Each structure stands twice: as C-alpha cells, then as structure tokens.
C-alpha cells in the first residue's frame, strides 16, 4: 500500500514540477516583455512551443548520443524532482538528501554536454566548456550554503529541514536564521539560472547560442522541457532551504514564483559577463557572504 | 689439535708468491690458486672451531708479550676465508706477458698473505709489518696497469700512504713508549692505567689516520678515486674490497681492546659521517663509473666506521655486516666496471649487449642501497637500529646522514641502471664498435656472477646467519676473553696481585 502511494508520488511529482516550470517560463517571458515594453506571450505559449518543436517535420540528429543526451537531460530532471519534497509529497527525498539532489541535478547537464559534444560543432563545445565553467562558479557557493543549512538543522535530509522550519514558523525559517546565506543563495540561484549577465554559454552573438547551435525540433523541445524543470528545481531548493518549504501548494507556488521573479526582474537589463568575470563575481560575493554566514551559523 | 696451522694463513700465500720462479710453467700457474684454496679451507675450518672458542698461537713458543702472537676468533677466521675467496675470485689469470703475469700473481699473493696476517695478528708490531707489506703490494699492483695516469695516481697514493704509515708508526711508538708492550692482549690489560688519557688518545688518532689511508677514512682517502679510476678493475676490487676491510678490522680491534673510550668513538663517528657525506655526494656527480664506485666505497666505509663507533656488540655486528657485505658487492661492481669505464654516457644501451651484466649490476646496486631481502638491507638495519638505540644525539645525526646518503646513492646507481637500459648507443652518431666494446667478456660475467651467487646465497640464508653474526660480534667485543686466551698467566697474576 505504502509502495503504491510512493509510486504514485514519483509519477506526480515530476508532472507537477513540469507544470509549474511551464508557468515560470511564461512569467520570465512576461517580465522580459514588460521590461522591453512588449505585450508578451499568451498563457499557454510555452506549451505551444514545446508541442511545435516536437511536431516539426525536419528533425535532424547527429547520432545516437545526440538523442541520448536529450534523454538524459530530461530524464535526469525527472529523477531529481522525486527527491525534492513538495507539499504533501516527499517522494524519495528522505532516501537521498540535499547533497545527492545537488549531484543528481548535474546529470542533466552532463547529458546535455554529451549530446552537444556529439554534434561536432565547435560553437556547441565552447558553449559546454563555458557552461561547465559556470557550473564550477556557482556550485562552489551553492555547496557552502548546503553545508550551512545542514549544519543548522542538523540533517542532510530535506524533509527534516523543511519540517524543522515549518514547526517554528517564520522565526525558524532559513532566511531569518541565516540571512547571509539566504542572500548568497539568491545570488547563486541567479547565476544558476543562467540569465543575463550570466548567460555566457548561450551568447548568441558570440557562439551562435552555444549548446543549442545544432539543436532543433525534438532536441530543442527537450531542452525547453529541461528549462522548465530547471527553473522549478532551483527555486524549490531555495524555498526548501530558506523559506520553510511549502506549507500548502498555494504558499509553495507563491514562494516559488517570488524567488524566480527576483533574478528575472533584474536579468534583462544587464549585458553579458565574460566567462572569467562570472568566476570572479560568483567566487567573490556569494562565497564571501556564504562563508561568513556559515561561520555565524556554526559559532 | 695443533694451532700452528694458523701460521699457514700467512705462510702459504707467501710461499706461493716466491716459489714460482723455481718451478716449471704448468705448476707455477696453479700454485697460487691452490695455496689460496688451502687457505680458504683453513678459514672454513677455523671459523667452525672458533665460533665455539677462539684460538691463539705464540710463534716459536715465545710466551707473550715477548713473541709474535696470532689470535683467531671467529671474526678473524671469517676474514681469512674472505681474503682467500675474494683473492681467488679476483685472481689474475691473464697478463700481457708472462713476466708481467708472474709479477701480478706474486703481488696478489703477497697482498693476500698480508691481509691474512692483518686478520690474525695479535700485536701492533705485526700489524704494522703486514700493513706495510699490503701497502707495497698495493702500490705495485696499482701501478701495474702500465698507463701514465695509473703511475701518477700511484705515486700520489704512495706519498699519502707512506705518510700514513709514518703517522701510524709514530702512534705505535707512542703506545710502546707509554705501555712498554705492543701485544694487543697486554695492551688491553694495561690500557686503563696507561693509555686512557690524552696521550693515549693522540696515539690512537695517529694510528687511525695512518691505517685509515687504506681503510679510505675521511681525511686520508683522497687517493681512492684516482687509483680506482686508473688501476685495473681487479686491483681496484682488491683494494676497495679487501685491503680496506682488513685495515678497518684492525682499527676496530684496537678500538674494542685498547681504546674503548667515548672520545675515540666520537672521532670514528665524526670521520665516518664526513666520509659518508663526502663520498656519496661526490659520487652523485661522478662522470664515470669507476670514480663513482670509488666514491661510493668511501661512503660505504664511512658507514662501517659509524657502525664500529657504536658501543657494544650491536655496533660490531653492524660494522661486520656492512664490511662483509661491501666485501661481496664492491669487487663485483668493479669487475663489471672494467669494460664500462669512461664517461657514463657511453653506457647507453649496454644492457642490450650484456643483459646479464646489467642484471648483475642492478642486483648489486639494490643490495648496496639496502633493498630487502638482500643482505645490504640487514646490514643497514643493524646499523640504524644500533644508532637509534644510542642516547647521544650525535648518533641520531649519524643515522640521518646514513639515510640521506642512501637516497643519494640510490639516485646515482639507478642513473647508471637507467643509462644501461636507455637508448642504444648505436643510435647515436658514434659507430657500432663503441657499443660492441661495451659487451662484457664471459670471464667478467663469471667472476661477477660468482659474487652474485654468494650474495644471493647469503640473502637466502640470512635467517640462519644472524646467530653466527651475533656470536662473532660478541666474541670480538669480549676483550676479557681475548686477554685470558692470549695471556693466561698474566691474567691470573694480575688477579692475584
């Protein structure tokens, strides 16, 4: 019985994540449109885009690995969502923990990297090299934050971290308990989402959209799906660590969108960093804040 | 049994050295080896009985301290055996001319006799005589290479050696002046009253410097690289392998019996350390294999000096182990170096010409740097455990010196091994004949292989050899027994006095 319930959760959780992600994409595009004084896309535009890409007549593949890369990118996130507790559902979060989640979320990137590599386009390879560099940049403060949270709540288990926050109300939320880490986290999240000024690996004018250069049709559709998942995952992790997770779906979704909205509202007014500057800025400010924050937490 | 057999140790080789001119050719060539074989057999026999109890012999039945005394404990017996065996393995079978060969063989036999004499002598006068005999034979052999360089080197060696002898003689005179005797047993008995003062120490130091010339002691070892680089490999092997060990043995005996003083040990220790440091480091930059081996042997003898400076039988055991190990390894290496002389770069690819020779070199090198389970390791183990057990920090420093220099030694020896196995010299612009020249002759391989077989036998038998070694060291350390054996009457009379 318990098993059936769990299996159900495992199926539902990725679906919900994807749906929320779709709307996050919509929000992002809306925000961009507002800043640029456009109207912006209609409600279901992200979904239409995906369907359109999948249904395209010309679908070119550079080989098996090209396809498998996309499969890994999507599949990896599907798996990751089951390790991320949402209101009412824990999935296998208590079997994995924060660290595992952090590492599982690297699998889609690795899959994408393999797929892009197979395309034999230097623009794509350069894009991956930059993306991995960016990952090196933002994952370092990210794990500092994970460390702080797991030290504060005495556990590596996200379910318990959330439970501890909800038990004590806002006063025990991560954001009040470890404000510095929360700021660092927001910064890191921003970098993680890879929007301007951190979109070094897309850089359309330099490397012709980098990883996407050889992607079209289903491949690009897969990437689109991946982006939905990515937005959801990043914001859900942040909410779970700092904003008490989701007491119920309403609050949860409100928090998620709020978290994503902050970087999105800033993103579109910036130009792009150079790769080395991303490293410099991410290793400097969020790192510094994170380390001080950890020191305060451990004191 | 009759202990007068002891005299044969010296007499047989001498006889074989001087008889040949009177004999027909065929027998003449066999006489030397035969004599050495007999001495070797005698050595085995003596070793077996002396392991139980030492023996002594007063020549002509003059009671000590008047007459000439031979004293053989298991250490001396083993050295007698070693002298005979090593000389046999390094026997000069061939010469340029018959006359030249005669001379070489005679000198080698004289050297063997002198070495045997050094091993068994029980008084300082005899020691001096045999030492001079060995020296003269050594000069003759070293110059025998016939090249101008060899003669120059030998001349410098001669000057240094004579000066050394002079110093030794001076030291012996001082001792006689003070104690009125040169019999070691007698001296051991009298030393606490007469010689354990600055005066006595000065005498010891003079003898140390004098005999140290042959033992490649630091301060008086500058002759070694030149001689070994220019002399025949066999001669270098004899000098570095054999003669140095006998000089060392005499010094060790003197230290144990007459001067068991911290100052004397300190001098040995410091000079040993300096010898190790200078020798091994100099070898590091050696540009040809013979000099490298020469410096390496200076370093090894430094280690032996350090070992003998450790008080107690543990130090003696370590010293004996190092000396005997070096006695096995260094002559073999010199033999290999005969064809492999000249610049190190010439060695490139020689392993392909003589794989067996290269393998032997690697074996000896490994043993020399003390890789277990080869015998060199056990020697090093004894030395280091002896040093570590001393309370004085100077001994710990010596331990550090041993460790550091061993690393240096490993580097330069393996550099040679690398050269041997490196790209063939035939690939360089120098033509084939050079490389052909590097092929070792069968005789060299046989001689060196015999040493290797001995070495491996010792390695395999190590667990069974430790007890005899400990026993030998104990015997050597037991000066009371020495006195009692040589001077039964005096000992009792002293006691009653």
């Amino acid at each position, binding site marked *: 019985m318990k098993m059936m319930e769990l299996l159900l959760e495992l199926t539902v959780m990725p679906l919900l994540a994807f749906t929320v992600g779709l709307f996050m994409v919509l929000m992002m595009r809306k925000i961009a449109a507002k800043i640029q004084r456009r109207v912006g896309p209609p409600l279901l535009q992200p979904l239409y885009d995906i369907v359109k890409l999948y249904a395209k007549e010309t*679908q*070119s*593949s*550079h080989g098996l*690995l090209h*396809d498998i890369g996309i*499969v890994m990118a999507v*599949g990896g996130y*599907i*798996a*990751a969502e089951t390790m991320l507790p949402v209101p009412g559902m824990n999935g*296998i979060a208590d*079997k994995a923990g924060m660290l*595992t989640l952090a*590492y*599982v979320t690297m699998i889609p990137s690795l899959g994408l990297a*393999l797929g892009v*590599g197979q395309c*034999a*386009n230097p623009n794509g*390879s350069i894009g991956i*090299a930059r993306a991995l560099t960016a*990952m*090196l940049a933002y*994952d370092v403060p990210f*794990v500092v934050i994970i*460390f702080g949270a797991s*030290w504060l709540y*005495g556990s*590596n*288990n996200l379910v318990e971290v959330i439970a501890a926050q909800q038990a004590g109300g806002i006063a025990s939320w991560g954001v009040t308990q470890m404000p510095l880490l929360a700021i660092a986290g927001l910064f890191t999240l921003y970098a993680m989402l890879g929007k301007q000024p951190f979109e070094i690996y897309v850089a359309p004018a330099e490397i*012709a959209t980098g990883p996407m*250069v050889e992607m079209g049709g*289903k491949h690009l559709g897969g990437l689109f*799906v991946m982006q939905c998942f990515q937005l959801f995952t990043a914001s859900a992790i942040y909410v779970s660590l700092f904003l008490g997770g989701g007491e119920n779906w309403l609050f949860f979704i409100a928090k998620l969108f709020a978290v994503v909205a902050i970087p999105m509202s800033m993103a579109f007014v910036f130009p792009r960093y150079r790769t080395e500057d*991303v490293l410099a800025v991410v290793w400097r400010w969020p790192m510094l804040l994170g380390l001080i924050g950890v020191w305060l937490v451990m004191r | 049994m009759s202990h007068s057999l002891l005299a044969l140790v010296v007499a047989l080789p001498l006889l074989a050295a001087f008889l040949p001119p009177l004999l027909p050719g065929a027998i003449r060539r066999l006489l030397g080896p035969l004599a050495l074989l007999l001495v070797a057999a005698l050595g085995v026999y003596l070793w077996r009985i002396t392991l139980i109890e030492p023996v002594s012999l007063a020549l002509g039945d003059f009671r000590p301290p008047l007459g000439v005394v031979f004293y053989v404990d298991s250490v001396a017996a083993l050295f007698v055996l070693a002298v005979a065996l090593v000389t046999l393995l390094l026997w000069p079978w061939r010469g340029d001319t018959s006359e030249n060969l005669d001379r070489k063989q005679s000198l080698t036999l004289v050297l063997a006799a002198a070495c045997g004499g050094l091993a068994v002598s029980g008084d300082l006068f005899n020691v001096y005589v045999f030492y001079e005999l060995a020296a003269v034979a050594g000069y003759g052999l070293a110059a025998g290479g016939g090249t101008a360089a060899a003669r120059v080197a030998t001349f*410098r060696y001669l000057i240094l050696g004579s*000066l050394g002898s002079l110093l030794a003689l001076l030291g012996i005179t001082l001792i006689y002046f003070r104690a009125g005797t040169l019999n070691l047993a007698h001296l051991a008995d009298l030393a606490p009253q007469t010689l354990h003062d*600055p005066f006595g120490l000065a005498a010891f130091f003079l003898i140390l410097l004098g005999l140290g010339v042959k033992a490649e002691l630091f301060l*008086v*070892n*500058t002759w070694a690289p030149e001689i070994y680089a220019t002399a025949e490999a066999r001669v270098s092997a004899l000098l570095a392998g054999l003669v140095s060990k006998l000089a060392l043995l005499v010094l060790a005996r003197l230290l144990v019996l007459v001067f068991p003083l911290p100052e004397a040990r300190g*001098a040995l220790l410091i000079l040993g350390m300096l010898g190790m440091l*200078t020798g091994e*480091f100099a*070898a590091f*930059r050696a540009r040809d294999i013979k000099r490298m081996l020469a410096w390496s042997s200076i370093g090894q003898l430094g280690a032996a000096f350090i070992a003998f400076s450790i008080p107690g039988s543990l130090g003696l055991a370590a010293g004996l182990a190092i000396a005997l190990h070096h006695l096995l390894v260094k002559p073999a290496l010199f033999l290999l170096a005969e064809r492999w002389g000249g610049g190190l770069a010439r060695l490139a690819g020689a392993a392909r010409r003589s794989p067996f020779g290269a393998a032997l070199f690697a074996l000896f090198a490994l043993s020399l740097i*003390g890789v*277990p389970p080869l015998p060199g390791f*056990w020697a090093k183990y004894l030395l*280091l455990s002896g*040093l*570590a*057990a001393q309370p004085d920090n100077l001994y710990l420093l010596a331990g550090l010196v041993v*460790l550091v220099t061993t*690393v240096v030694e490993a*580097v330069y020896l393996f*550099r040679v091994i690398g050269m041997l*196995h490196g790209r063939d010299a035939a690939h360089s612009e120098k033509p084939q004949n050079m490389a052909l020249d590097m092929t070792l002759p069968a005789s060299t391989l046989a001689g060196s292989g015999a040493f290797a077989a001995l070495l491996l036998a010792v390695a395999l038998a190590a667990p069974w050899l*430790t007890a005899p070694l400990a026993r030998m060291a104990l015997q050597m350390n037991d000066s009371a027994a020495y006195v009692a054996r040589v001077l039964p009457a005096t000992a009792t009379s002293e006691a009653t006095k």
Partner: protein
Amino acid sequence: MNALDILLALSALMPPAALLFGRWRGYAWLAGMVLTGQIILLAGCDLPLAAGMNLEIFGRSVGWRLDAFGRFFALITLGVALASTVYMGGEWGERHAAGGHSPRWLHGALAGNVLAMLLLLSSQDLIAFFIGWELTSWAGFLLMAQGGEKALRAALRYVPYAMSGAMAVLGGLALTLAWTGTLDLAALTGIMPTLDNTKLALLLALFGMGFSIKMGLLPFHLWQAPAYAEAAGAGTAFLGAISARMGLFALALLLVKLMTLTRVADLAFIEGLFTARDLLAWVAALTIVLPTFTALKQNDARYLLAWHGIGQGGYMLLGIVIGDATGSAGGLLHVFNYATYQAALVLAVFAVMHRTGTADLNSLGGLVTRMPLTFLVMLLGIIGLAGLPPMNGFVSKWLVYRSLMLDGRPLLFLMTVIGTLGTILSVYKLIHNTFLGQLRAEHEQIREAPWSMTLPMLALVILAFVTGAAPGLALSWVAEAQAALGLPVLAYTLGGIESPRGNLDMLWIVGVLFAGFGIGALLFYGAGGRSKRVHQLDNYAGGHFLSADVRYHYSDHFYAGLMHRIGPFYRSSFTRLESAVAAATDLAASLMQVWYRQTVPALTLLVAAVLGLSWMIWK
C-alpha cells in the same frame, strides 16, 4: 598450509613463471585463472590468518598475518591484476611485444607487484612490512620502466622519491625499535600511543613522509603522474588503480591502528587550533584540489588520468583522518571504487591508443561512432571518477562529504567539492576530445577494440555500476576492514546507509534515475516526428561549407575562460621546489668533489693530524 600460505605461494610462483613462459600466448589465461582462484580463495577464507612461514632474524620474528583490513586491499589488488593480465594477454600484448618490449618482463613485473603487495598487506611486524614496502617500490619501478625511453626516465625520477620514502620509513622503524623495544605490529598498538609527544611527532613525521610519498600526497606527488602515465598500458592501469594505495594502507595503519587518531590530534602546532590531524586533513584536501586542477590542464589522456589518481587519493586520506564511521568508510570504499573505474578508464585510453596510436587529446575526436563499447566504458568511468550518481564513486565521496558536514569542517568540505567540480570539467574534456566532436578523416576506418581489451574494461565498469547501485556489497568488506583497523564500524544497508541525520539509498536513487531516463526516452522517441541522421559535416558553420579537410573540432585550451581566471594560480611551485632540491644536491656534490680534487693531499693529512691531536689533547 592454510589459505594465506597458498595465496602467497601462488603469488610467489607467478613472477618466475612469467619470466619463463611470458612469451607463450596462453600465459595470460593461466595467470588469469590463478588470480581468479586467489580471489575466490581470499574472499572465502576466515580471517585473521597467520602464514606458516615465520623467520627469526636478529632475535626478532618476522611473519605474515592477514586481517580483514589487509584483505580489503588484497582483493582489489588481485582484481585489478586480473583485469590487467587479461588485457595484456590479447592483441594489446602482441602489439606491445612487436614494439620491441618484453612480454615476459611486463608479466613478470605485474606478478612481482602482486606478490610484493600481498606481502606488504599481510605483514605482521615492521620488518616484514618494510620488506613488503621496498619490494612494492621496486616492483613498481620495474613496471613503470616497461614502456620505453620516456617511461624509463619517468621511473628514474621516481627513484629519489621512493628512496627518500623508504629511508624515512626505515628511520622510523629504527626509532620505533629503540623507543618501544618491539617491531611487532600487534604489540605496537598498545605501546606507541603511550610515547611522549615529541617522540610520537618524530615518528609521525618519518613514517608519514615515507607513506605520503608512495601515495603521492602533496608536496611529494610530482613523480607519480609521469611514472604512471608513461608505463605500458596494462601496467599503467594496475599502477594507477592500486599501487599508490599501498601508501594509504600504511598511513591508515599508522594513524588509526598504531598511533590512534586521538593521539595524533594531541600533537598540536597551535594548541587547540591546529593539530597534526588537521595538518593531515589539509594536506589531503590540498591533494584533492591542486592535482585535480593540474589534471585539468593536461593534453595527454594518460597524464590527465594519472593526475586525477593523485587527487582521488586525497579523498581517501581525508575520510580516514576524519575517522568517524561514515568518513572512514567513505575513504576506504573510495579505494575500491576508484580502483574499478580508474583501471577501466586507463584501459579505455590505451584501447584508443591501440587503435589510433595516440593519447593526445588534441589529435582525437569523434570516436564514439567507431568504438562505442570503449566509449561506454569511458562514459561510465568518468561518471565514477567525477563522483556523480549512479556510479560507485558518488557513494564513497558522499560518505566523505557527509562526515565533513557532520564534523563541522566547512572549508575542508568546500575543498572536496571544488575537487569534484574540477574533476567533472576535466573528465568532460577527456571524453569530449576523445570520443565526441568531429571524427578525423584518418580515423574513419577504425574498428572497436578487440574483446580481450573490451571485456576486462566492461567487467570493471559493470562492477563499478553494480557497487554504485548496491554499495552494500562493497561496504561489507569496508565494515570488516574498519573493525579490523579499530575504527567505528559503519551501519550500512544494501543501498547505502540509514542514519537519523540523512539517509542514502542508492537502490532507489538509481532506480528512479533510470526510470527517469526511461520516461525521457519514451518522450523523445515516442512523441513527435522522426529524426533523420545527418553527417557530421552537415553543420552550422556561420555560412561556410565544411569539408573533411577542415578541422572543425574544439579541443585545445578547452577551458579558456576558466584558465584566464585561475591561470595565474598555476605557479609550478612544487616543480620549482623539486628543482631546487636537485640543484642543492648537485651543488653539495660539487663541493664534496672539491675535497677529492686536492693537489697536495699529504699536506691536508698533516694539518688534519695536527688539528686532530690538538683536539684529542685539549678535550
């Protein structure tokens, strides 16, 4: 004859057998069977076992006795040797022999290494230990030197390091004997912790230095990469996978069993702030980070892997130094995990070399279509090396991370993660430059590596995958080893660990991950239009047309942006340190030679005599 006797006797027979019959084709299979037999025998026997052979030397007994800690390493050794031997026995070995190398010596060196390691791992006292230690060093040297001129040069560079290490150990051994009166390891466990701090610190410094050198810990790591990389293929795999771990074995023995970690933590540099244990932890952490980022700069696949090998050692030591049940289990488990994927990776690189003749990362590319199995091996291998799920490398690293988190070591934790991230970057470059991107025209006709090579590689990565999905399989050995060493024992399950402070269940994680891939595949292949395979030159090129003679592959200076930032941190400080030591030795040597170049030695003799006499008299 008990199991250990049989084990050692078989291993002792193999080197001579290899030297005699190594040229015979069937030898590899024979050796493989012997090794398999040994593995079965070893895995099945009850421990501890004392060997029948017992020597008495200088009044001390020298003996061999294997416990579960030694067995853990011994099993890995035998397993890696098995894979290497099979690999050597096929086409690769023939090519090696055709290149003028001796198969007999290669097999012999490998067998010699196995024997030496087994002797080391089962040593009962410090003399037996030192014998095993030295044999391991020199057998390792022999194996390193098998790959031609460059290999020989790299092996020679190893000599001063190996010898310094050996001498440090020997010095420690002598002092141990002098201070405790015994060399028996069992007896020392009681006595060594009671020594006073100065003595303990000296012993720790000596032994620690000796063992660190073998393990390639900073700052003694420089020898390792070239020595391991340049060796002959199967030899490289063996060396890389397990040889250096003998240093870890010894360090663990010293730190945990002989000295105990609490005593090590007593040796404070700054009271209460920085102890010898912290120093070790930091050395381990730096060993993770610096060599990993050196690996990132390599352009030769073999060197890249060898440098990662050095870095991975840091995780193992760090886990053990932390010393709790989780951390030490992670450290030990990493030895096993690392051996599986590293051996597979090295073999894969040599398979590529076998077909293409090069390991230069700038002259390969696109081989995935030609050597798919080798690609699969490398893919799984790098996932393991990078420490990502679902491979086993993730589990052991996770254990180490978690113990650092629980122990409250944020900076060390950060270092380990930086190491992992660096590894991800570096291994992606490895697989990208070898297998992805443009296939070169000259590699069009290349075939997959023969079965004699792919089979051992696949076996290794399958093992790495299975023990990743079900780490409990390997953790049972680890727990045994922990118990034998005196560490707290990890409570493990088949899928990982269960603990109130965070669980890990790899069975579920791997299951979900593959379910995710399945759904992803379903979505991709089941929905939407059919995709058409296009040629690699049918590509976006900014308006140009591509042809086979155009190199359209991004490989050199792969992480240009990153290097722009961190490039200035590569200062080659260690290389300079090494040259400085070499130069100082050379200088000392020149000075010493001055003594032997005197023109008038007799004068020196006289001066010395006079000075000596005055010293004797004045004293």
